[in-house]
């Protein structure tokens, strides 16, 4: 074992035992100052001088053959510099984020409303907008299919050349038919959720700058700079070194900014820059963004659940139809996550599930915070409540009999090894005063004629990070400047989650320095290698391990140099309060900066690459059985609602949100993520619905697609973190970014059912849907 390895090994042992220095303490985000000062940090703020604009001509039809494109009238306009069609793409016409099923510009057919057909470049945005209407495209409309069940019929119109069924994902555990035979009670229901928009408030935007040496630098708003980079290189047909992609501050991601549209907007800008040799700004209008940005998938889920009369689950059958729209994007992965989680966080001995990912002529769906889990949990958790009602059991009692505890087997027969769910569940029941509130509301409802109140609960488990969705690695590049400043750079991105602050915290912890001595640089494809995608709530968990690896390497190098000066052994040194000192005699120490200076003098390099890859997960694709995820986050959400039964308007009064974060790295960040995710999920529950009429998006703006405001925000969200350490996350951390958005749909639906006496199986819980349910229940 080399000296360095030995120190690393010993350090690991110390790390297990010691108290944390910064981890888990309340600190401000590393990037919040720029935001409160209103600094120009977003892509659109960075444009200067003489630049031009590019925008796409989009299809008014959800499905049509393109017979002819005539750009002549647009080209004759004074300020128009060019019109590009698929024929002008120098490289490959491929803008699928993972699967190459999607052209950047349509060739002979459009498959969804708003699909890009041509690009118009002009010196003013007004002229470009005017010219869009002057590009004459002759279409021949084709039959449209807009429902996944219809799309599976043999005579359905084909969306692509392949069949409409993309994936049939299966879970086969035990003998489900025998389970149903033995059951005392069976409930069977169909659940529906709609297309929803992640709706980052900064729309897609890219700024491409051609340089003297033929390279194009593209600054953009996105989650995955390397996905954008790789595709733009391919589309432009240039050598890889001729493209450089930099992520500017990004005004919200929520998943869609890891999908197709960030590739589109960057490719539009780079193509136009290649043609005009001028800087180009490409920015989506809100309407464009809502129309074509990847959506949260609409699901139809049929659940059949069997239990004994004392409330033990014996069998569960799920059929999930996922509408992925006209192109696959991440649909084949979302269906896997949804199907894996179809029973909710309960032990069921016999499970049979079929998940179908299906193409339609609806707008494309892809990644959105939660990645299929909110839909699956909505169907599972409302189903559990309906079952409890049939059994005349309190919803909490039924759940207590079936939740995943240490030793339980999930639907994929993966053994649970921690008690995170039990703890979350118990705390949520206690902290919300569940039993007392339930009684109070029932009393209240007897007295109150038009206003009713209710309380509901939902529980979750969430397979962590990528699991079956890809190689779960990260790297983080860390160096120390001569003045002692530590600089972190990685291909992982910040877009609001606060996870990059976690990387800084892990680094500060390991080096015993203050957070203000750490600077995080923007992701730049010319400076760092790919660190994998910034998705699946994996930055703190996986990226944190890579940051830890880098910081430990630096610590080991600093320790060797400091040990020589202090005449001590490197492994006996402590790093704390910007000092490096002998653990047993703290007065014998050196300033961190001084040791850095000594390293520079001695030629000891202080620039390292940290790396981590999670163990590959295994499961059988025929049965779904195995260990698809390395660890699980658990959680419980109690919602309390008030409904006016004359208007059908629902108000969420309070939420009690308890999540097992494994180890809280950044408490203030976690609090914002829990509150914010709960509010986003509240929108999914009550108002959010992207409506298609025969394939045409009719809610393409923020006055028809309604997201929560302060007016809808619960008066109180009680956020509680519990810590049941995970197997792979840094210091035991578990994934948290997406998780709080998973339960509100289910929890609010269950609370509403308590208020009005009937469960509604379809979101959003719009007034007309509620009034209809009340009428039918009378």
């Amino acid at each position, binding site marked *: 074992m080399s000296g360095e390895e030995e120190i690393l090994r010993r350090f690991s042992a110390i790390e297990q035992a010691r108290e944390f220095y910064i981890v888990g303490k309340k600190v401000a985000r590393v*990037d919040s100052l720029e*935001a*409160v*000062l*209103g600094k120009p940090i977003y892509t659109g703020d960075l444009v200067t001088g003489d630049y031009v604009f590019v925008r796409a001509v989009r299809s008014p039809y959800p499905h049509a053959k393109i017979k002819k494109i005539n750009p002549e009238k647009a080209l004759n306009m004074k300020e128009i510099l060019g019109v590009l069609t698929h024929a002008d793409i120098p490289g490959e016409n491929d803008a699928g984020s993972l699967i190459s099923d999607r052209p950047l510009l349509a060739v002979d057919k459009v498959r969804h409303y708003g699909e890009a057909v041509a690009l118009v470049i002009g010196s003013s945005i007004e002229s470009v907008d005017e010219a869009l209407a002057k590009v004459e495209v002759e279409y021949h409309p084709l039959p449209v299919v807009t429902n996944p069940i219809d799309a599976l019929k043999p005579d359905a119109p084909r969306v692509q050349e392949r069949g409409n069924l993309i994936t049939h994902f299966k879970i086969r555990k035990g003998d489900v038919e025998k389970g149903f035979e033995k059951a005392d009670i069976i409930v069977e229901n169909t659940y529906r959720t709609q297309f929803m928009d992640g709706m980052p408030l900064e729309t897609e935007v890219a700024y491409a700058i051609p340089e003297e040496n033929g390279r194009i630098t593209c600054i953009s708003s996105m989650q995955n700079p390397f996905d954008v980079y790789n595709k733009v290189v391919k589309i432009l047909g240039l050598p890889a070194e001729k493209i450089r992609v930099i992520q500017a501050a990004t005004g*919200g991601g929520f998943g869609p900014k890891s999908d197709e549209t960030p590739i589109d907007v960057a490719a539009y800008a780079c193509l136009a820059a290649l043609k005009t040799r001028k800087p180009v700004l490409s920015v989506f209008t809100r309407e464009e963004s809502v129309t074509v940005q990847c959506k949260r998938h609409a699901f139809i889920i049929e659940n059949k659940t069997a239990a004994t009369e004392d409330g033990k689950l014996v069998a569960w059958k799920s059929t999930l139809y996922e509408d992925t729209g006209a192109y696959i994007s991440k649909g084949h992965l979302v269906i896997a996550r949804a199907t894996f989680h179809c029973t909710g966080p309960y032990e069921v001995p016999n499970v049979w599930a079929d998940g179908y990912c299906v193409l339609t002529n609806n707008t494309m769906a892809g990644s959105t915070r939660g990645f299929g889990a909110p839909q699956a949990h909505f169907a599972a958790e409302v189903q559990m409540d309906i079952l409890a009602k049939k059994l005349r059991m309190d919803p909490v009692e039924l759940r207590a009999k079936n939740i995943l505890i240490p030793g339980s087997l999930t639907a994929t027969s993966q053994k649970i090894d921690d008690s995170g769910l039990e703890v979350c569940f118990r705390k949520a029941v206690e902290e919300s005063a569940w039993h007392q509130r339930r009684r109070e509301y029932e009393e209240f409802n007897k007295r109150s004629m038009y206003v009713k109140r209710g309380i509901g609960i939902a529980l979750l488990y969430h397979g962590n990070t990528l699991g079956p969705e890809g190689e779960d690695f990260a790297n983080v590049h860390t160096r120390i400047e001569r003045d002692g400043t530590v600089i972190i750079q990685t291909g992982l991105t910040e877009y609001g989650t606060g996870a990059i602050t976690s990387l800084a915290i892990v680094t500060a912890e390991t080096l015993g320095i203050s957070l203000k001595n750490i600077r995080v640089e923007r992701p730049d494809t010319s400076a760092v290698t790919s660190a994998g995608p910034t998705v699946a709530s994996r930055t703190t968990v996986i990226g944190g391990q890579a940051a830890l690896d880098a910081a430990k390497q630096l610590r080991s190098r600093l320790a060797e140099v400091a040990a020589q000066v202090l005449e001590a052994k490197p492994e006996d040194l402590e790093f704390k309060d910007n000092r490096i000192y002998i653990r047993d005699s703290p007065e014998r120490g050196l300033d961190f900066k001084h040791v850095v200076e000594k390293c520079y003098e001695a030629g000891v390099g202080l620039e390292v690459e940290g790396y981590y890859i999670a163990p590959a997960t295994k499961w059988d694709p025929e049965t779904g059985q195995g260990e698809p995820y390395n660890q699980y986050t658990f959680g419980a959400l109690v919602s309390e609602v008030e409904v006016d039964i004359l208007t059908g308007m629902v108000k969420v009064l309070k939420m009690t949100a308890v999540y097992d974060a494994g180890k809280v790295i950044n408490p203030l960040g976690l609090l*914002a993520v829990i*509150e*914010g995710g709960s509010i986003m999920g509240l929108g999914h529950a009550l108002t959010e619905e992207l409506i298609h009429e025969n394939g045409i998006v009719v809610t393409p703006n923020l006055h028809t697609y309604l997201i929560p405001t*302060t007016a809808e925000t619960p008066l109180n969200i009680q956020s509680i973190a519990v810590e049941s350490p995970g197997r792979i996350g840094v210091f035991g951390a578990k994934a948290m970014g997406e998780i709080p958005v998973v339960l509100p749909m289910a929890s609010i639906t269950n609370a509403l059912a308590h208020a009005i006496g009937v469960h509604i199986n379809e979101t959003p819980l719009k007034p007309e849907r509620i009034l209809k349910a009340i009428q039918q229940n009378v």
Partner: protein
Amino acid sequence: MINISLRVNGRNYELNIEGNERLIDVLRDRLGFKSVKEGCGSGDCGLCIVLMNGKPVHSCMVMGFQAREKEITTVEHLGDEDNLHPIQKAFTDVGAVQCGYCIPAAILVSKHILENHENPTQNDIRWFLRSVLCRCGSYLRFEKAIYEVSQQVR
């Protein structure tokens, strides 16, 4: 071209602008106040809110010429790195910043609330802040920040 004079962040400007230029265009493109953000262009999201004669307005819904002789405030006028405005400090301390895109507008509306309500209630805060959408859902953080500043003032 239309000739207008207006005062932005304590400084007078005399400009020739196009008739179709919105206030947001004047502020961002002509004067370089990039803290003003555009999220929709239709008055829904509130990210372009600035204070005009002390009142919050959607700068995407106000034409440039309508700001003639008016006094405009953007976040650039509030504080700097070494001397944060109490609201900016409170936003940082309570962890209000997530993606950051709505923060300038939320801070300006918060300033308006604090300047017009000595002791704002939760209702007051929510009434005014409805005008700013925050998809990250920092609303309860904003409330806490405003509450903390109102306590300091007292």
